[in-house]
């Protein structure tokens, strides 16, 4: 939004890269249009961002304008897992299990700094960003992000859904296989590198003056 030029929000236009048949592109366009405008969110609300998510869902910043007012608290009917709030290590297996039990196609919005990168909780108890556990589609910055910021994140996700080639390319919906020993999606070295403290958080571990 700030530095990079805003991506062109393609509401109607749809230019598939390869020359698929006219039918599949029209059908894909119809399927994507249907999915984008009726994403059922699963609010995985843990902390302060959940209150801001409730404010977004309430009547002033109404989420119903995006077809998302129907909250689904069971992963079986959910399309989007919105992780609103910090995720401690005790909660990591829960969010991993819920993500795995969601049917494809599924997306993840990581709402807030704590979900996206561990935020200000750089200590022994908090997962440093849920992208080390589950693949994330949209990161919404802020602590907590304003409802407009969350809605902007949701609109970015809708753009992504509109541009997916949902019928012709089935590989993008394959379930990611877990490495059985460590149960990770990404290799351990990458997790350590992702969770490294950055900025002035590097020397925050001095307890004395």
């Amino acid at each position: 939004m700030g530095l990079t030029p805003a991506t062109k929000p393609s509401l109607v236009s749809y230019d598939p890269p390869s020359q698929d048949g006219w039918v599949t592109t029209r059908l894909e366009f119809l399927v994507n249009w249907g999915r984008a405008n009726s994403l059922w969110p699963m609010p995985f609300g843990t902390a302060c961002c959940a209150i801001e998510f409730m404010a977004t869902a309430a009547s002033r910043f109404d989420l119903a304008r995006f077809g998302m007012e129907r909250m689904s608290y069971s992963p079986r009917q959910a399309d989007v897992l919105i992780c609103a709030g910090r995720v401690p290590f005790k909660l990591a297996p829960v969010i991993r299990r819920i993500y795995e039990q969601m049917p494809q196609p599924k997306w993840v919005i990581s709402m807030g700094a704590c979900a996206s990168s561990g935020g200000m909780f750089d200590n022994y108890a908090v997962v440093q960003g849920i992208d080390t556990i589950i693949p994330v589609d949209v990161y919404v910055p802020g602590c907590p992000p304003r409802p407009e910021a969350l809605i902007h994140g949701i609109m970015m996700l809708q753009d992504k859904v509109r541009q997916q080639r949902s019928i012709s390319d089935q590989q993008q919906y394959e379930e990611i296989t877990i490495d059985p020993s460590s149960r990770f999606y990404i290799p351990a070295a990458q997790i350590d590198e992702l969770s490294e403290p950055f900025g002035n958080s590097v020397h925050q571990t001095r307890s004395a003056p």
Partner: protein
Amino acid sequence: MATTTRTLEVELATQSLGPNGELRRVPLTATPDGVVMPIDLPPGTEPDMGSERMLINIGPQHPATHGVLRLVLELDGETVVRCIPHIGYLHCGFEKIGEYRQYNQIIPWTDREDYLNSMGNNISYALSAERLFGIEITPRCTVLRVIAMELSRIISHLVWLGTTAIDMGAFTPFLWTFQERETVYNLWESWVGARLTTSASRIGGMAADLPSGWIDGLKAFLRSLPKTLDETDRMLTRNGIWVGRTVGLGVMSASEAINYGLSGPMLRASGVAYDVRKDVPYLDYETYDWDIAVGTKGDVYDRYLVRMEEMRQSIRIIEQALQRLPDGPINVDDPRVILPAKSKATSEMESMIHHFKLVMEGPRPPIGECYVATESPKGEKGYYLVSDGTSKPVRWRIRPPAFVNLSAISKMAEGHLLSDVIAINASIDIVMGEIDR
């Protein structure tokens, strides 16, 4: 609730923890035909075949647990035989981080801990830090802090009211209460810049003084809130479903409530007229004219009435505070804690050094410790600070009222139906950020 031998009167208390905290299991002995007999039960006792029991998780990800609380219920049909709460799913090491931060740097942590009452927490922490430093704050700051704490109490009760009504099937109060809460968000934002995580207080003062037009915005809110409260009152208080689902649930008698350490609306609903603002007053609360709402039976319905009345009393306090709001500085002019004015800091040399030194090293309190209790919407919220003279506290202990209130849920929930456990859990007004710290 006598448990039948089928429920295996094994030693339910587990002394089975190793010296450094790992789990040691109590071995189960199984007779040849597979019936598991406890160790000390005389052999040959015939287990009576009661109806099967079911263990279900009302777990961390559940719409009715107000956050990531997990209740494991042992159900006999629909009646709850045993309710075992599991918490810790939002434990983020607040108290550990407190020992690595300076005193002014802890303020952003206080509003992320009980995120419904963020302004109230900031001020409650500032009060205990100011007593640790031995600072008296200015009159204008005192009255401003009373207004902020009472407003914070109102919006915390509004979220409780909205979510409890949803738990019992009434969706519209949620939209009304969040509409009111949005107006207060606007007030917070114009005053401090943030809607939810305000970080408004500083040791010895506030982050900023009121912007112009803020008082009129507050007066408009004080006119519109009673209308919403009356509308919700008309809808819920004498509503057959609401009364039927809340009266007689989770009853706590006065002596039990005191022994369980309950506080706030939970304690007052059981008939104990203990309010920190009246008994251990701070910020000149004793000079305001208001009274405490005290219930009689201590059930879910009384807690609802006490909280509704508390919101009306908070409006009374804010109106009196608005009349007496004095002018004058908002920060105490004590160079140990308050930064010099920006204009002086950039022009005079020693102000710049003072500014730099204070920001880099942080204020240093004298050696000592103090505990200041304040009345948060959940109960008696206290900060116990221990300092060894350095700029980072040795111990930052948060006295979590909802944590102690929640510890009584197994006593309140057992014997009721499954849907009543949801109502009882909602009536405790839990915020998992504060419970799990």
